[in-house]
């Protein structure tokens, strides 16, 4: 608990939950902490970046508060800790530290399955898979969502088209794209019908020859080793050898050499246990993990040349890990450091570059996995744009900028600084224009009710009518949740509370809520309706799912 003069609720399960809500350690949810508003930022010891701020508001007493989102706990095979230490920066409580409980860890199916399992030993693999699916069913869906999103972002970042009116440009790690292009690319990404060209595919085509060469003929060093040698073979001794010899009984060498006629001497042996070979060994291990992940992800394209190439590459990796001298070197401890050989020796140089790319990608994936709730929110944001497209929206919104980073920041690639302009709808009898407001920009929009800020929605959809006589449509506040069990009792209660909160809002326009969550089980209802809040279960791929569009239209038509 925080050691300060104020009380802060520890790790609220859902973004809309108020201070002092009931806590349960085993509920997934989307955890956050609420702190006094003068604290500038909060740093957690489990992630690199400061915690993302997802809301700020003043309560009824005029006190200023901020809500920061927490990452999920990391999965560790032996069962890791779900507790993180937070540090506040700025404000009266500068450098205060306290501990919070994170959402329970979730294994990544393609990574955290024991590596000795292989689909070749189908029985064992199948059993393990069933166990994991039973306990962590949404892990597979979650991984599909994050992987698809990363692939979409990479695609968006890497492909730059010039157009006179829809400008595209890459600037210092940020890709500037238009909403129109981003949307069309997103829709295409949902209809993928082949194995993607992932980094591991590129490595599988580029590395085998050099990897095989290095593993079979690794760079070695000559080490001096003291061992018992026949007297006639001793060529070199050192003070230790002489001391040993002095301690032996006898007056001459022959007597001291004993019955075996051996004395302690120095020999030189070739040793492959060098820093660069440890890096190669780590590369073998990481590449094998990535191969497994890729093959698991592309099970439906088993005959695709890329899949075949990766499978062949994985076999090579396994062989090199077990049969080559590199497989027997010590494991890498800590972070790999570039040395002269890795940077300038032609064979190792190639492997070093591949290693860096692989490490970078895996770090990204680890970070995204930790912040998967926010990645899901980003996916839902693009899905909301797509809803507008489905409603034949046009106009200025399509020319808005999208700032896409090449690296995620707390699970998000798209910078919320670039807000999308109003969507002009052709369905004028319903609404004429719609603003989709990101949660971090609620204060910037004049029509978003002030009271809504404390509930910290991910998005607020603000419909507007040009014709003042038209019936006003409700504002839609949208929350996204990735890890919610279908019939979780705590979540049901929280949703009820949210519905009550929306009902009590003192806003001129009524506010309805949507909670977007992936559909893990086909038996689940698309829409689970309450008084003011609906839980909408979305089917992957999102680009082809109508549930969100139907939910939005339903809210506007019925209200």
């Amino acid at each position: 608990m925080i050691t300060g003069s104020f009380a802060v609720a520890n790790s609220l399960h859902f973004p809309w939950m108020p201070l002092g809500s009931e806590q349960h350690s085993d509920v997934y949810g989307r955890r956050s902490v609420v702190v006094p508003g003068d604290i500038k930022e909060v740093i957690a010891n489990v992630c690199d970046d400061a915690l993302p701020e997802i809301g700020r508001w003043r309560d009824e007493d005029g006190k200023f508060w901020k809500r920061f989102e927490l990452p999920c706990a990391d999965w560790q095979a032996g069962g890791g800790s779900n507790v993180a230490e937070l540090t506040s920066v700025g404000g009266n409580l500068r450098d205060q530290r306290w501990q919070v409980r994170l959402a329970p860890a979730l294994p990544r199916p393609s990574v955290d399955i024991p590596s000795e399992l292989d689909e070749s030993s189908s029985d064992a693999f199948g059993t393990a898979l069933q166990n994991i699916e039973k306990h962590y069913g949404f892990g597979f869906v979650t991984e599909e969502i994050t992987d698809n999103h990363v692939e979409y972002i990479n695609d968006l970042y890497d492909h730059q088209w010039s157009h006179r009116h829809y400008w595209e440009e890459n600037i210092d790690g940020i890709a500037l794209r238009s909403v129109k292009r981003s949307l069309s690319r997103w829709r295409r990404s949902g209809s993928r019908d082949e194995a993607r060209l992932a980094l591991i595919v590129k490595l599988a085509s580029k590395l085998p020859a050099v990897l095989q060469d290095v593993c079979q003929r690794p760079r070695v060093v000559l080490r001096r080793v003291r061992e018992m040698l026949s007297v006639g073979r001793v060529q070199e001794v050192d003070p230790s050898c002489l001391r040993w010899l002095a301690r032996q009984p006898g007056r001459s060498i022959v007597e001291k050499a004993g019955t075996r006629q051996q004395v302690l001497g120095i020999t030189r042996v070739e040793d492959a246990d060098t820093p660069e070979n440890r890096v190669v060994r780590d590369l073998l291990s990481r590449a094998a993990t990535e191969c497994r992940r890729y093959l698991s992800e592309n099970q439906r394209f088993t005959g695709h040349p890329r899949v075949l190439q990766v499978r062949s590459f994985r076999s090579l990796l396994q062989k090199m890990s077990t049969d080559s001298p590199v497989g027997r070197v010590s494991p890498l401890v800590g972070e790999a450091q570039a040395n002269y050989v890795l940077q300038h020796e032609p064979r190792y140089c190639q492997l070093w570059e591949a290693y860096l790319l692989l490490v970078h990608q895996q770090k990204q994936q680890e970070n995204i996995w930790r912040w998967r709730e926010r990645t899901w929110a980003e996916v839902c944001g693009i899905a909301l744009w797509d809803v507008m497209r489905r409603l034949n929206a046009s106009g200025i919104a399509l020319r808005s900028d999208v700032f896409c980073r090449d690296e995620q920041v707390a699970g998000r690639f798209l910078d919320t600084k670039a807000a999308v302009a109003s969507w002009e709808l052709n369905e004028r009898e319903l609404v004429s224009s719609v603003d989709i407001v990101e949660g971090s920009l609620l204060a910037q929009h004049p029509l978003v009710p002030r009271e809504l800020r404390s509930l910290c929605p991910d998005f607020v959809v603000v419909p507007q009518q040009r014709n003042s006589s038209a019936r006003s449509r409700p504002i839609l506040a949208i929350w996204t949740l990735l890890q919610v069990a279908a019939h979780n009792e705590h979540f049901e209660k929280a949703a009820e509370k949210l519905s009550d909160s929306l009902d009590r809002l003192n806003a001129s326009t009524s506010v309805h809520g949507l909670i977007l969550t992936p559909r893990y089980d086909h038996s689940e209802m698309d829409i689970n309706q309450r008084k003011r809040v609906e839980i909408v279960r979305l089917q992957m791929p999102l680009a082809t799912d109508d549930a969100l569009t139907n939910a939005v239209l339903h809210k506007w038509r019925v209200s």
Partner: protein
Amino acid sequence: MIKSGQPRQNEVWGVSFDSPAAHVASATVRSDSSISQHSARLSHIPAAALVPRIGERVRVDLVIPPHPRGTGRSWPPEAVYDKEGCGRFPLMLAWPFVDNDEVWKWAFQDENHQLTPYAALAAGVREAIPASAETDDNRNVTFVIPNHWHELKQQNLLDALHFEGVSARLLWRPIAAALAWCQRMSLQGNDDARARNNKLLVLYAGLESFELTLLDLVDRHHNGFPFILPGRKRPARNGHFVVGCGYSSVLQHLSRCSYEFNPVMGLGQLWERMWATPWLLNLLSAATSERFAITSRPDIANLRGESELQNLVACRHSGNWSDLIRWCQQWSRQLKDEQIAGAVIVGPLASALGPEGEPLADQLLGNMGCQHVVPFIEGRDAPYGLLAQGAALYSARLRAKLPTYLDTLPRLQTVITRAGEPCWIDLLKDDQQFVEGGEIWRRPENLDGLALAKGSHDLKLAVSHEDFNNVREVIAPLPRAVTERESVSIAVAIEPAQGNARLEVFPNRPEVFDKRRVVFDWKRMTELPLTREQYVDGLPRIYPNVLPRLSSPSRWQLTKTLVSSCTRQLTTGAATDNLIWSLQNVKQSLQQKDASYYPQDATAIGSEGQPINDPQVLVHFVEQCLEYLRGDAGRLNQHLIRAVAYTSTSHEPLLEYLHSELLHDGQSSGQDVVTACGWCFRDPTHIASFARILESRIRASHTNAQVWWKAFSEMLRYRTNATRDISNDQAEVFTSLALRTFEFERQRRSGKLLFRYVSLVIVYLLRRRAYEDAYLDPLCPLAESVKNAFRQAQADVKAGRLRLLGGAVNMAEQLQLMIDYIDRRGSGQLLLDV
């Protein structure tokens, strides 16, 4: 719209942002040098640059729907227009921003951005031409600029264009209009003698300003074909007239329309209507109808705050119709004697109606007294985009190697040292002679008179431009420091309207720069807080300025009557005693100084020998005196000479008389003759003769030397060329002799007249450096001796052991100044003789 795609060979473009609807025109040069043209309106909304947020390149918004940034809407945040600025910079507003040296600022949440008008315009040009044309390195794009832009603005824009990857030329706005007019006249068969050797009136009727230019029409033949070329003189100061009545009328219209539509429309919505919708373009395209007319008394304050509305157009100066009419009437006086062949009216308001419903152009021309001139009006007689067409035609003619237009170069001056004296000289042409537009003009002779000081790393050049009050310094960085003092010359080249002149430094010894080229870097130009005169005064000098005695009108008024009276007495032959008394009165009156001129000397007649008025009075007096002197004047002789001496007359016969007397008597010349020589001699040969006699006189005897040193010092301090005929050796001898006397007087602790005269002789002999730079090298033994003597005198003065006669001047400072002059770094006027 010009279609993008692969550029055809010999395809060129002209771009103009002089109206809210930016225009682009293309032209193709065929193999037979004929030119075909195509013109188009570029934008569907007023062209505007989007201020970059994340370092992206500047984008220019031209189409509907607009990009959300800076549209004035309430959502998204980047669209908002408020007092912190706006993310949309309409290109029409770039012109006043350039004129006021301002940048477009936009504060947005925690972001602060800004955009220069040059970057905005350059991005506009880039967007206007096909993407494939950007890589063309042959300057196939011409952009139209106002007539009053000086080189710095041109260069800033060219640099911004270069940054955008556009290789473009700039063209004056009136020239673009005139080229389009000339071509149309030629096509219509009106290319006759009527147009030749006459003038063409070009009026730009813009929203923010009106600009009038009178161009010459010059007849030229090229390959046997006649061409009429517009010729541009340097712009008149009042030619560019910011009136703002266009914007006032537009704002009034906007305010009225908005009120009818929505009485509570916010400023953001007004901004959106003005700059992010086609409203303004539609309004101006209807300018010929009665839907939009210039209002005589714009009243925009009735619905909104006037200043708030003016923020919409970034315009603080609200002119009105009467200001515009008055300006036209001022022009009528200049235009009445001109043979005007035609008038071209361009700009967004060219075809607009005036307050009384008559065409604006007719009313303005009428007030200029040019009712008889048939105007050619953009939007009425030709479609909009005339300037872009003219620009494209210019590019095409250059591509076809045909003559384009004639231009005059700007007045650009620099300081060089001539005969040791810094002076301003023209870098470019000093007159208004025409040069060929689109071609590089080179100075026929390199600019000499410059030198690199020993150890210097760069060469600084002071530049004075007619458009700036203060002097600026440009710098040429050298490859390495020079080890010796090196004389250099500068080659000058400039292309009219294409930015800064190119100045290249050439050392007299080419090995100094290791065969590397050294050019002046205008980006390292700094503005100095000095006018031209102040700059020259502050430059270190190798010798002091002459210190002439001024003519005092009040003293001359008093003296004139005495001189006239004396002349009458001389003419009538009065008694000798009376004459003596009268001559003494004249002498005293001439000698008396006017204290009101302190610290400068002023007497009734200055050292130039010219009274303020009635010079004949003096001439008669001198002639009468001379007549007496040539006869036997007896007792009168010395009085006559003294009286004449103090007139400092330049009367040649008298000077010859004095010279002959001096030569005749030599060392034994009387005090009166010596004194008269000192006041009156101005011919270098006379002064040289005096110097020779002085040397022998001083060597022969030290008695009564003071009058000789006094006379010599006066010659040196009054006459600019006094040392011309004195050799270096002679000058050094005089310096040695004077130094000996100086030391003698110093040791006697006497800072009286003799001390002063020899000091003056030493320091004014430094003017010999004007003829031979090597005179009295600061490190030579003699110079060191002089400096040591001066330093000891300084110490004596500080210790109170030496005091000047009178004591009004800070002796220590003056001695230091003299040392500085010997060391070739003097600055300021010597006041030792005051």
